[in-house]
């Protein structure tokens, strides 16, 4: 009884497409609202401060138009506070990720996702639009709202990865997830577009539009999302017999990995035990507890799953580099090369583009190989090289853009893969044997650790840059990339060993 497999695309139904698009756009909207906040920072700090007077000239009149708002004395203080808001947001996002992953595995994914999207939209509306309409500017209010926003937004990522993991099996997961994890970068582009087109009416309208669209997205997700194929009685897309799917925990198994045995194993382990209705009677003996619904895994159990800890720590270092690039790049470009902020913003899009391409291509390659860690290792080594190259970039926009895209390819690729495809792999390992729901919890852990790394990095980068210069910042990035390589070292070694063993057995068979 061979699994009903399947050419690559024919196994996907329209449900898969809709799920892909809905989860994709949920995260796009979330990132768009974050990017909106970054883009309106100049307008917000202008709103919070009185007018700048040159020299000893008296204050402008009338006071309501020019001097009234004195939340901060000058734009430097306002910028410091905006940076502090970023850090607060990232920390509460990280904490929320740990919690939301656990919640997502226990509750209905669709409810948690819609709640996160709509709740976050309401908080953003309060933060940006209501405070401006009421002219109520208060530091503590802003901080509390942003903490709440971080907690609510953290519900989204684990749920979307879990839903994707439910619908898309291991075969092709690398490619599909690579393509799908472009959502963050698409969100950045959409957010920049929305903010720039509405900003002239006032920054409060930028918040209004993004939060309204995000709320609408939450409503559409609530009515249209199927969190797993079970809900419509479909089978999970099974392993293709072509790609060997030995996990590193298989390395201790006997080496008799002939086709029959592999298929039998795959039949049992068909990604967490989702079976189609017609197969259930045949597989009764081998099917693990088909009657019992999967139990959600505990937080510490999930933490102790093989591979979760090293990948989380590696992701912390990678996300630090990724986010620091994302947040500081326009500032670095305009302060180091003296380019205008609009130009720097446009150039920084290339990093995102490189990340999208990198995630997709590397996901595809890792699917062909059946292994993720070696692809990551090669990419991270090349990333260190490209960082060295970028730090010595000449004052030429074209060359800078090319180097930026290359760096984005090598850093963004592994980063996207770890946060999506690998998290899905980890949450669906054989160790769980389909009896435990761990996908959202594991995703939450990996991304939560990553966000803590990113939050810490924001502070460190500004510290290093103000004490020393930009070169040490790049050395710091290179070191962090190397450290993340070290963390996934054991995984690389064991996967390489199993690759060698497979090749040896194939040679023996021939």
């Amino acid at each position, binding site marked *: 009884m061979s699994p009903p497999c399947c050419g690559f695309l024919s196994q996907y139904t*329209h*449900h898969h497409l*809709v799920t892909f698009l*809905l989860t994709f756009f949920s995260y796009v909207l979330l990132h768009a609202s974050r990017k909106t906040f970054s883009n309106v920072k100049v*307008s917000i700090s*202008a*709103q919070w401060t009185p*007018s700048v007077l040159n020299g000893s000239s008296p204050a*402008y*009149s*009338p006071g*309501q*138009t*020019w001097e*009234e*708002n004195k939340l901060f004395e000058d734009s430097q203080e306002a910028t410091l506070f905006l940076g502090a808001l970023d850090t607060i947001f990232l920390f509460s996002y990280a904490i929320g990720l740990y919690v939301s992953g656990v919640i997502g595995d226990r509750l*209905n994914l669709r409810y948690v996702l819609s709640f996160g999207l709509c709740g976050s939209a309401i908080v953003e509306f309060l933060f940006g639009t209501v405070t401006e309409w009421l002219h109520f500017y208060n530091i503590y209010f802003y901080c509390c709202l942003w903490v709440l926003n971080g907690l609510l937004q953290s519900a989204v990522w684990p749920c979307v990865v879990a839903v994707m993991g439910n619908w898309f099996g291991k075969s092709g997961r690398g490619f599909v997830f690579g393509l799908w994890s472009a959502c963050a970068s698409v969100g950045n582009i959409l957010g920049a577009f929305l903010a720039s087109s*509405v900003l*002239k*009416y*006032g920054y409060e*309208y930028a918040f*209004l*539009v993004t939060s*309204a*669209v995000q709320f*609408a997205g939450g*409503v*559409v997700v*609530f*009515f*249209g*999302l*199927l969190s797993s194929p*079970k*809900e*419509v*009685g479909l089978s999970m897309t099974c392993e293709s017999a072509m790609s060997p799917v030995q996990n590193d925990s298989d390395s201790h198994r006997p080496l008799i990995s002939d086709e029959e045995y592999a298929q039998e194993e795959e039949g049992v382990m068909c990604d967490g035990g989702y079976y189609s209705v017609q197969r259930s009677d045949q597989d009764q003996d081998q099917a693990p507890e088909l009657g019992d619904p999967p139990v959600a895994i505990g937080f510490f159990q999930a933490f102790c799953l093989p591979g979760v800890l090293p990948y989380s720590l590696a992701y912390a270092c990678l996300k630090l580099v990724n986010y620091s690039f994302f947040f500081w790049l326009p500032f670095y470009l305009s302060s180091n090369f003296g380019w205008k902020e609009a130009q720097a913003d446009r150039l920084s899009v290339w990093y995102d583009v490189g990340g999208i391409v990198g995630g997709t291509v590397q996901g595809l390659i890792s699917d062909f190989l059946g292994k993720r860690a070696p692809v990551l290792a090669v990419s991270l080594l090349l990333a260190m090289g490209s960082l060295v190259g970028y730090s010595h970039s000449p004052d030429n926009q074209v060359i800078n853009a090319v180097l930026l895209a290359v760096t984005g390819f090598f850093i963004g690729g592994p980063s996207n893969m770890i946060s999506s495809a690998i998290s899905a792999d980890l949450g669906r390992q054989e160790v769980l044997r389909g009896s435990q729901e761990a996908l959202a919890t594991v995703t939450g852990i990996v991304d939560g650790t990553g966000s803590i790394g990113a939050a810490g990095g924001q502070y460190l980068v500004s510290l290093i840059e103000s004490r020393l210069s930009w070169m040490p910042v790049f050395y710091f990035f290179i070191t962090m990339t190397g450290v993340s390589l070290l963390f996934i070292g054991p995984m690389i070694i064991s996967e390489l060993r199993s690759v060698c063993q497979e090749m040896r057995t194939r040679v023996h068979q021939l």
Partner: protein
Amino acid sequence: MFTFVTLCITSLLFGSSYQQMEFQVCHLCVGSLQNGTAVGYFCASLSGRVEGRCCWRQQGERASIVGLDLSNCSLRHIEDLQEASTAVMIDLSSNPVINISDSVFQGFIELHYLRLPSTLQCPGGNASWEKVTSDGVVCLCEEQKDACHQDGNMSWNCPENSLCAPDGPGFTQCSCTGEYHGYKCLREGQFPTGLVFGILGSSTFLASALLWYTQRRKAKFT
């Protein structure tokens, strides 16, 4: 006291053309506008209504003060004349005032004739007025100059999106040009709320309905 209050309330309830707001500035001292004074002559020529020391002129729905005569009032301090900011002629002579802050006259864009005791300087300095004469008893400041155009060129720079406008003798204000409005004239135009929310609402409804029909309608578990 009680009748006074009821009178106030009833007069407030009575509608615009008979509105006689109790402007404090008109009653800073006793007596009313005299015919023989400069302000009195000016008031008569405009057929304005006299109330206390003020001369009122009716312009359509609104009435505004065009003249104020506080001469010979034994005033030692003059602090707030803002109620008379629309005045064209003000007489403060024969008062034992030692000094007066320039900001008292901020907002007096119509003021073209100002009589002050000779102890005082013209507000905004002599450069803010076309003609300044002093005969030892009274200082006369005539024809306020546009402070935005000092010495023939724009000596006052307003921030972006705003233009200089006069705001009294020696005062300027920066008011937003064109479509700009709001704090620091940062905002431009009106946000098309109806259009945006109309499109958003209808597309959300359509998308939700379509997706529910194609996806969730057959869902077995909640």
